């Protein structure tokens, strides 16, 4: 027996040394580290990047192409008036701590998320829920105040995952979900480890374990991939380095789209940006292609409104704001700023913002608008720009899917307050038929484009650099997620 073990061990080592065939673990890197591990409590995308679909599951979920597919709910019935959803949950599902997942947990999760004192970052997702009732142990009924065509979509978000009352207290440091991977260890500032959940109710993942590493510095990211310290880097931060990886036979480069509308956020309540002529002038001063080429080395699709171009409901509104510095100067003169003005441009860390900011500053200077650039770390940005609204201009990518609804919230940081738009969003929420929804979405896109609420720059692309042999990674980012369920090493 001892002999045999040793033989097996040496065979394993031999395999390991000569080929990667036997590999069943992966090290993936992402840029930002999650501040905590509670997707139902924190707003940071990095939480979902690590945990979505891996550790936590919701009633429904996004697949790699952004379609809504079954999650813990295996089937559902929608009442004729569109207000009552009856979900049939998968059987035999347990949380990682061994407790069973049933309708009570769903009720707990949804009630917790929509509660008065809930800290959920996307409370709007649950706003229409009036009641959650447990019908049978595996059947739960959700009642809405009005039909909501987006409800199944909303339930797929990372903010709507199902958690258990037994493990909720420590969720921020010890996340217990139902997913194919269990959380093992988190060394803050360095890495987070996941292990395959042996009791997973669905198809078992190919990987035995996975390590997430957090590398925010583009140079360090380049070095880590080149040195093969990581097997894959999702959201590689330096687009200028991609051609090198493409030319290197060791690596594959996947470029996909995201839900990230990158915009020149404009403080609509701060003079002179409260004047639509000024905002329009800014829009005409911007040369999108120069920004995409200069800041993203060509990665990105120009947008003329706050909507993802790969979405079927997208309307091409680029014609509203072509690059036209003369027109911009005219508009400024018309608005009473013939001599231009000075404003602030506060930039968070990603290179689309820092580099894009320098380019936009030059383009605005060309029409007479001087900007004082301030580079902020994310925490400072959240505080100064997002919370205190102390900014003139900023650049940020809004990566939430289908987030045009933020324009209906006058308290949102860019402070756009248009009752017509708000009414339109109400109407949209009450509409379930797809054609009607698309019409309303087109209207909404047109309103914010013609109001020049923000400078619409480009749809962020996401680049993944992985070793040749890693397969099953998401190419697109329909939501912030690094879904490892289908990831494996090629034979």
């Amino acid at each position, binding site marked *: 027996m001892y002999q045999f073990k040793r033989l097996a061990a040496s065979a394993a080592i031999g395999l390991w040394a000569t080929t990667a065939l036997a590999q069943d673990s992966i090290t993936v890197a992402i840029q930002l580290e999650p501040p905590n591990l509670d997707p139902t409590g924190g707003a940071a995308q990095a939480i979902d990047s690590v945990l979505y679909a891996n550790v936590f599951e919701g009633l429904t979920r996004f697949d790699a192409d952004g379609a809504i597919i079954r999650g813990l709910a295996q089937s559902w019935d929608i009442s004729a008036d569109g207000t009552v959803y009856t979900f049939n949950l998968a059987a035999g599902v347990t949380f990682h701590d061994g407790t069973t997942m049933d309708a009570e947990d769903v009720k707990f999760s949804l009630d917790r998320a929509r509660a008065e004192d809930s800290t959920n970052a996307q409370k709007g997702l649950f706003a229409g829920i009036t009641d959650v009732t447990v019908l049978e142990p595996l059947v739960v009924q959700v009642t809405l105040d009005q039909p909501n065509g987006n409800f199944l979509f909303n339930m797929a978000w990372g903010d709507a995952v199902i958690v258990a009352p037994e493990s909720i207290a420590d969720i921020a440091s010890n996340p217990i979900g139902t997913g194919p991977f269990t959380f093992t260890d988190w060394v803050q500032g360095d890495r987070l480890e996941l292990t395959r959940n042996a009791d997973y109710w669905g198809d078992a993942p190919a990987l035995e374990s996975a390590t997430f590493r957090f590398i925010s510095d583009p140079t360090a990211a380049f070095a880590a991939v080149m040195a093969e310290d990581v097997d894959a880097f999702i959201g590689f931060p330096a687009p200028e380095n991609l051609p090198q990886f493409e030319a290197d036979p060791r690596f594959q480069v996947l470029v996909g789209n995201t839900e990230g509308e990158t915009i020149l956020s404009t403080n609509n309540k701060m003079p002179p940006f409260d004047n639509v002529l000024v905002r329009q002038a800014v829009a005409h001063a911007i040369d999108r292609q120069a920004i995409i*080429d*200069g800041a993203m080395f060509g990665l990105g699709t120009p947008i003329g409104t706050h909507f993802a171009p790969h979405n079927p409901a997208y309307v091409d509104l680029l014609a509203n704001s072509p690059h036209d510095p003369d027109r911009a100067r005219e508009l400024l003169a018309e608005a009473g700023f013939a001599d231009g003005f000075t404003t602030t441009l506060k930039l968070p860390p990603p290179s689309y913002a820092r580099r894009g900011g320098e380019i936009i500053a030059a383009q605005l200077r060309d029409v007479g608008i001087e900007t004082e650039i301030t580079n902020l770390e994310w925490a400072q940005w959240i505080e100064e720009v997002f919370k205190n609204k102390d900014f003139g201009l900023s650049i940020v990518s809004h990566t939430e899917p289908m987030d045009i609804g933020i324009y209906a919230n006058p308290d949102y940081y860019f402070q756009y307050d248009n009752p017509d738009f708000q009414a339109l969003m109400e109407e949209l929420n009450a509409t379930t038929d797809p054609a009607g929804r698309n019409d309303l979405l087109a209207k909404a896109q047109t309103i914010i484009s013609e109001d020049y609420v923000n400078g619409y720059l480009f749809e962020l692309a996401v680049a993944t650099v992985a070793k040749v042999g890693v397969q099953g990674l998401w190419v697109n980012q329909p939501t912030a997620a690094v879904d490892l369920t289908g990831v494996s090493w090629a034979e």
Partner: protein
Amino acid sequence: MSRNLIIGAGLSVLFICLAALSFIWTPYDIEALDIPNKLQAPGGANLLGTDHFGRDILSMIMMGARTSIAVALVAVGIGMALGIPLGLLAAARHGSLLDELIMRGNDLVFAFPSLVIAILITAVFGASAVNAIIAIGIFNIPVFARLTRGAALPLWERDFILAARVCGKSAARISVEHILPNITNLMIVQGTIQFSLGILAEAALSYIGLGAQPPTASWGRMLADAQTLVSIAPHTALVPGFAILLMVLGLNLLGDGLRDWLDPRIRVARV
């Protein structure tokens, strides 16, 4: 004159001239981005190539020299303007409580790693060239104060000072009229060294984004911007890197050369 002095002075004058020239002329306008023309190799229309925004690197080096020199010069100025009087005062009141206070205060500032405090200052008060100047300037104060006191103390024992005191001159007048002229050489040499350290500190602060903000050109930020481009366009990092290297080398050689040249003992020995 020594070779050090000539090379050092040559390099320093070269960069100062470049900086001065940038006020009236640069080959290209660095505020106008020319993105289709990005990352051009040196030679051709752009002597030192272009950066990731298609800006002319030579023009940026000239404008960056201006930023570096301005920041370092003012920072040394702050150090001298506050440090020398403090040092003179401490020497004049040697052994008093005031002397203790000044010197222990100096020790306190010395005790902190200067760059860390500079980062703190710029982080708290916002990143800008002015705050970088203040941060670097503060750390020049104890350097000059300590040097001044050290050089002034033995002078106070000398007969000509005794004579001045007998004539009834106040300590302040003696410090200004007799002590200061005798330590000027030392201050010039130290000033040159601090100047080169100031250039380095400015580059370091700009590199981590706490120095001059865009569109003001800065060597440190050029380096930071070039970081991910090293493998595809090495000149974007090499050019500002060499600019910093040559400027600091030049100032150090100049300081060395000046010390030898101005030191009466060495000069006598040479004669």
